[in-house]
Structures are given as C-alpha cells and as structure tokens.
C-alpha cells in the first residue's frame, strides 16, 4: 500500500457528500452517524479524531461493521498489523459475507507470521469469491510456506485453469506441484507452458528440469540450450546444464556453464557448490579451496561449503583445519536448518 488513508480521502468525501445529499444521512448519535463523521474526519486527515468517533460508534453498536472495518483498515494501512487484526477479526464476524474483511484479516495475520490464521481467513474469502485466482495465488504461496504442499498445488492448478493465459501461473503451479511431490503433474504443466509460450526461457527451463528429474537427461539438454539461447542472462539453465555434467563426472566441461551461472548470480549457492565439486572431482584441490572460500564469503551461513572445505583440507593433509571446518558445518547445520531442507529420509524433525 503506497497511499495512507488520509491521502485518499478527498474523492470519498465527495462521494459521502453526494450520498448525504441523496438523503442517506443517519440519525444523530447513531453508530452510522458517528461512523460517517469519523470517515469525514479521516478524509480530512484527522486520524485520531476519526478513530475516536469510530470507537464511539462501536460503543453504541459493538458489531457495527463499517466502524470495525475502518479502524482495522486504518491500522492496516499504516502497517500496524497487530493493531489491525482484532478489528478485522470482529469485522469479519460482524459481516461474514464481506470478502475484504476476511481478505485483509488474512493479510494482517500473514504479515505477523501467522500463516495458518491467514489461510483460515483467506479460505473464508475464497468461499465468497470462488473464482478469485489472485487470492488462490497468494494462498498457494502461503500453503507452500507452511508445507501444505498438496493444498498449494491444488489451488495453484485451480488458478491456472481459470487463467491459462497468464504465464506466471504456470510457474506457480509447477513450483507447487514439485513441492507436493507431484512431478508428473508438474511435467504436464511445463509441457503446456512450452506449448503456449515457446519463446519463454523459463518455460523451456521448467520442462528441462522436469525431464532431468525423470532421468530423461538427453531430452532435457536441448531445452536447456534453448533456454540459454533465449535468455543468456537466466542463470538456472546454465547451472542445471553444468550440474548435469558434474553428475556425469564431466567435470572439466561443467566449469564453463557453472561459471556463467555464478557470473550472472553471484549468490547462487548451488552453482558455487557444484563448481567446487567439479574441481574436487578434477583433484584441483587448491582451486576447489578458493571456490569454497569464495562461497563462504558469499553466504557464511551455508553449511555445505564448510563441509566440503573439511574434505579438501583433509585431502590436503591438514586435519586440524578439516576438523574446524567440519565443526563449523555441523554448527551451521543446526543453526540454519533451512539451508539443508529436503531429501529427508525420515519425517521426524524436532
């Protein structure tokens, strides 16, 4: 939100006046009248006065939706999400048919890191507007953050069915399907994305990625090459091309594409790790050391470069440094588990 409530009052004031002229003036002292006066004050820039009047309106009618909503919205617009939340919650109860009450309540909760509460509110909003594909997008993202991957995938693919003309929706759905472990569906969507957007580097890359995941490396390589040709500044095709070469032990050949990926995006840690792995595979230990130390300087919290440094130092006979790097890696692993999420064999996580 770029505009404060106070900055947006002028036009609404005119509307209010118009409505008043139409004979909609409320009884003096009624919740409605107090709320309207509050609105006028808000529109004139007197936020505190407006809030007082809306509170008075609530004293008269505790469930009066406009006062509740406006108080919530006033706090929300100022970024005071914690203050906004109780009013928006009451507003949603006061008028459960109001889409925006639920929606804003969800955003306020989400901004406070309460993803589950946000999703609860947004689900109610979505019930009111079941074709609201934009809401589906943000819900899919939030579901994904909460590791409700199946729900995220369901919503993302539903949004895509509503708007198959929007390219970004394909990638959201692909991402969600991947996280949900539904790679066949992700592959199907990626194929559709390439059909609809053949000159999109991203679409070609996504399809290549899915083919690689299926072990169809041969099929993936032309797509990666096409993605690179379409957008040489897109780092991921370079990385996955290089990473495939590392996996094939074609370490020498991998250095080029991996180097490009890093040049485009210096903080691209998977590429930095892969290039170090290639150098280790080539037994170019001192270069591997340099690559890993550079990776550490780029992202000191990542445990993997330290783990690999311990291997390089060990190979070079420096067991003390190897031990120190191992300990650093193990500590970082505990401190920053998100860097190493995935392929967990067991679900048991503390």
């Amino acid at each position: 939100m770029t505009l404060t409530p106070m900055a947006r009052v002028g036009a609404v004031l005119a509307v209010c006046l118009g409505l008043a002229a139409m004979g909609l003036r409320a009884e003096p002292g009624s919740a409605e009248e107090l709320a309207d006066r509050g609105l006028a004050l808000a529109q004139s820039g007197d936020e505190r006065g407006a809030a007082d009047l809306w509170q008075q309106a609530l004293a008269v009618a505790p469930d009066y939706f406009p006062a509740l909503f406006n108080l919530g919205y006033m706090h929300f617009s100022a970024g005071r999400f914690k203050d906004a939340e109780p009013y928006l919650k009451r507003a949603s109860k006061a008028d459960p048919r109001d889409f925006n009450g639920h929606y804003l309540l969800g955003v306020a909760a989400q901004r406070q890191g309460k993803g589950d509460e946000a999703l609860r509110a947004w689900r109610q909003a979505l019930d009111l507007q079941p074709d609201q594909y934009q809401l589906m997008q943000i819900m899919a993202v939030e579901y994904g953050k909460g590791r409700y991957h199946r729900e995220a995938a369901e919503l993302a693919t539903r949004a895509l069915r509503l708007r198959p003309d929007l390219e970004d929706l394909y990638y959201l759905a692909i991402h969600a399907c991947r996280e949900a472990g539904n790679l066949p569906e992700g592959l199907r969507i990626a194929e559709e994305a390439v059909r609809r957007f053949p000159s999109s580097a991203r679409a070609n890359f996504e399809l290549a990625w899915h083919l690689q995941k299926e072990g169809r490396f041969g099929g993936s390589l032309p797509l990666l090459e096409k993605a690179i040709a379409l957008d040489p500044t897109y780092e991921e095709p370079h990385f996955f091309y290089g990473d495939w070469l590392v996996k094939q032990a074609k370490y020498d050949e991998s250095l080029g594409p991996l180097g490009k990926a890093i040049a485009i995006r210096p903080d691209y840690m998977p590429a930095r790790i892969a290039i170090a792995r290639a150098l280790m595979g080539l037994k170019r230990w001192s270069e591997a050391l340099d690559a890993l130390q550079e990776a550490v300087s780029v992202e000191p919290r990542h445990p993997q470069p330290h783990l690999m440094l311990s291997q390089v130092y060990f190979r070079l006979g420096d067991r003390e440094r190897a031990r120190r790097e191992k300990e650093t890696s193990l500590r970082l692993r505990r401190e920053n588990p998100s860097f190493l999420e995935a392929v967990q064999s067991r679900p048991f996580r503390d």
Partner: protein
Amino acid sequence: MRTGPQDGKSGLARHAKSRALRAEAMWPILALPLFAALLVPTEAIAQGVASANAQPVRAREPSGLPWRAQFTDVATEAGLDLEFTYGGAETKRYIVESNGSGVAFLDYDGDANLDAFLVNGSRLEGFGEGKAPTNRLYRNIGDGRFEDVTDQTGLDRSGWGSAVCAGDFDNSGTLDLFVAYWGPDALYRNNGDGTFEEIAGRAGVSGEDLQWSAGCTFVDIDRDGLLDLLVTQYQQFDLETAPPPGKTSNCEWKGMPVYCGPRGLPFGNVTLYRNLGDGQFQDVSESSGVRDVREYYAFTAVAADFDGNGWQDIYIACDSTPSILFLNNGDGTFTDFATETGVAFNEHGFEQGGMGVGVGDFDGDGWLDIVKTNFADDYPNLYRSNDGLFFEDICVRAGLASNPQYVGWGVDLVDLDNDGWQDIFQANGHVYPELDSQDQVQETYRQSNLVYRNLGGEHFEDVTALSGDGLGQARSSRGAAFGDYDDDGDVDVLVMNMGAPVTLLRNSLDGGGSWIRLTLRGTESNRSAIGALVSIEASSLKQTRAVLSQSSYVSHNDLRVHFGLGESDGVDRIVVRWPGGVEETFPGVAGGQDWLVVEGSGEAAALP
C-alpha cells in the same frame, strides 16, 4: 464506495448500504501490491538440486544383456521354518517393534557346510510360559537342507534380538557369536562340540538393561591377533518414558499417527571392547575416542581397512543422523572422519536414514567402496572410494536412484552372476504396517527386494524383474546374509522378514562365469582372518573384497570370500593384506573350487 489509489479514493468503509460496492471495487487496489509483496519469495526461489521428496530417476534403457542369476525362495523345502516375531503385525506402538533383526550364514561346526542363524524378536504383550520365540540355529546337513539344532546348541534365547556378528574371538578354530539386544547382549563362545556357552556377563560385554544395541562387529583394532568387539547402540530406550504414537511431530508419517522416533528419543552411543586374550574384554570406549562422537542413532557396523594403511577402520550407518567413519589412528584410538572423507552425508550434504551397509569394490580399482541403504523417499548411497580418503556419492550417476519408494535394509556388493563385477542386492520393507491398511499414502509396508546388475563398474541396472520369482515376494524385509549354502558356486541370500517366514533365495545361476572361493586363516592375525583384504587378478580384471564380521543390515555373511571370474578359468594371483598389517601374495589358482589361504603359507591349498 471503496475504490483505489488509481482514482484517488479511500479504502475506508462507509456504512452498510455501500458494502456491496466495497467488496467488488476494493479487490484490485489492495490485492495487487499485496500480491507483489507476497509473491517475491516464490519468484526468488531458485530450484535447487534437491526436492522435498527424492523422486525416482528414470533408469537408462535396458542393456538387453542376459541376466542369468535366478532366485527361488526354497526356505520351506530347505527346512528353514522360522516365522519371525517382531512386535505388532498390524500396528506398532513403539520403535523397538520396527527395526527387525539380522541373520547369519556361518559354518559353526567346521564341516564346510554353511549354517544359518536367525535372530528373532518379541512382542510387547509378551507370551505364555514357554511360548516365547527364540533365535534359531539351523545346521546345514549337506544336501541343500537344514535341521533346527537350536535347542541342543544353547542359542535358544528369547527377547528383542537385533544384530549378529561372528568371529573367532578366542582363536580356538571355531566361530563365536555376538548377538545384540534391546537389553543385555549375548556373547556365545563356541565350545567346538556343537554347543555354545553364553559368557557376555563374565566377559564384560553384556551392556546395560535399557541399552538398545543395534549393531556389532568383531575387529582387531590393535593388530594383536585378537578380535576386539564394537557394539553400536541405536538408542537408550525405555518403555516407561517413550511417548505413544501420534504424541508429537516426531510421531507422524505423512499425516498418519505412527510410533515415535527415532528423533526426539535419547541417542545411543558406541561401545568398544578390547579383547584381553583371557576370555575377558575391557571397555575402552572412552580411551579409544569412539565416545567422542555423540548424538547418533547407530545401526550396522562394518570393520575394514578403508584407507589402506593396514589398520582396521569402522564405518557405521546411522539413522537420521550423519554416518560415522572411525579411522584407526594406529595407537588404539579412532577419529571420526566421515564428514571429511565424504561418507557422512549424501552428495548434497543431507543426513539420511542409514540402515545397512555393503562393502566391496564395484569398480575394480582396489579400493573398498560402500553402498548404504536409507529410509524411504531417499536414494541409497554408493560411495565410490577414490583413494580411501575421498569418497564420492555417485548413486544417481550409477543408476541406483530409480527406487526411492523403498525403505532399504540389508545390502551387499556381491557378484551374483559370476561375471567378475560385484552386483547389488537390497532387502526392503517399510517400518509402518499401518500403511497396508490405508490408501492416503502410496506406500506399502511389504515391499519387494531389489537386484542391480553391475555393468562394467560404471553403472548398475535394475534386473529385479529378471531375477526369478523369489524376487516377486512382497515382504517387510530387514537383515540379509550372503553365501553359497548349497555349494554350487553361486551366492545365495538369506533374508529376515518382519512377522513372516524367513526367505532363502537359492541362486540357480544358469550359464554364469567361473568362480573361486577362498577360506582365509590367520596365524599371526586373528584365526578367522576378519578384516583381511583380498584381491585377485584374473585376466585384466582386478577384484577386491574384505572379510567382514558384520555388514548388510546387522547381519553376518559367509566368511569365505567368493569371486566370480567371468570368462577366466582361474586367477593369476591372490594378494591378501592380513588384518595384522602384512601383505602377502599367493600364486594363481584354478577356478571352480574352494581354496584355503593360510597366513604365511605362501601358497593356497585346494579344499575338497
């Protein structure tokens, strides 16, 4: 009433009469900037190399080469009639019911026939008087059949058995057994007359009551010719304090309440006992440094000279924690260098649910490689050793990433078709029997075992479907032992199955290559030659294997070292690095038979 910044109107609500307008009009104004903010994280996420769940990597096109190893389950006709007991059949309340046990192929009576020892479990609710199941020893009577000799050998103990390892710890010429338990462990000294005596308490190796020992290996740590003993403890497990199923986030599997653990339960540790040579062992866990490693759930232990310096090292597969590689410092101490050497994690640095370990030389470079099985939604590891100090996990490249749906347990690098390349057998089975009575999760408790053929030391091919009807069984398997029980020149497989009969997979190899089998006997080294590294050269092919006290999943293989020879009809030479550190070269021998290789003798002797 509620419109947006585009037309300069406020988002504030007026009164009830304008609500309908608000809902429709406000959406784009509020939504777009919020979407922009919320979508940033997703767009910024680069696709890493790992996903939340390891997906099957499609296998290469089939090689089309014939696969001649054919397996048939002959357990019943061979007289192996044990149906294993291990916790609840339909549901398991505690983790102690789930991990199963190991099995052993060994020649306990020295008649050159391979006998079978099966470690059994128990049930939480117990049994009536005299009804408790026990471990079983089956004597091979030489015609492809076994007889149950448990009662007369003194091995009829009940309880929650887990692991077995064998070795001649008193150098008496007969194989002794160590059996690990949840509860006090058992050390069975072979009396040489067909009976065993349980001496764990007297020898000082029985452990503690609540200690859940899960792996063991005899190993000569100090090259004094006496086998020492390492025992891994999976956990300290107490039914009084263990949480019930579904209690915490550590007690769910894909939304389904299941038993808790291992995460959240007390870690185990590693115990090392030094053999004093008088029937007593001394606990040297602290002084040897093996207790310096903490917070592990340790399973299978494999002792071998991984770094080629003549001293025995120990690799331990760990569940949900990094695996351990104790390198022997040569002074009675060990240091864990699993991380530094690249065998603690997978190639992306993730800890895994390690279960079983196979050790061999799949690429014929003379260095011992490691295959480790892991939990479901993950790949096994194939750690290729470059020089004993630097391992690479090449599982995906090698073609072993096509079956991540299985929970892997018993495993070995073993030449099943005698072509001179070590193949892989992997026993599988999930830990949650509840999976078989639901349809939410596409997984089953009972799973097929797997066979991968080694294609020239570069790549493995899944040949399970070509390996005979014995591989078609779906059971929840755990331990597996490898050996030629019927002496027909190919390797058979003995498999433990949870709550089900034992499987004996008889390999009827049709038209495979030749083979040799070496029985090693130490003189300066421990008599059973445990820890010896044997290399043969046949034509241009070099093969290396180690004599192991434990491998696979907490199991013990035939100590005789089997080599397939492919087209060769013999070997050009045999090189043994004895566990005492001495390397000895023996002249070549003919294929198709057994040879006795005695330390210091200079020549292999044909066995009848």
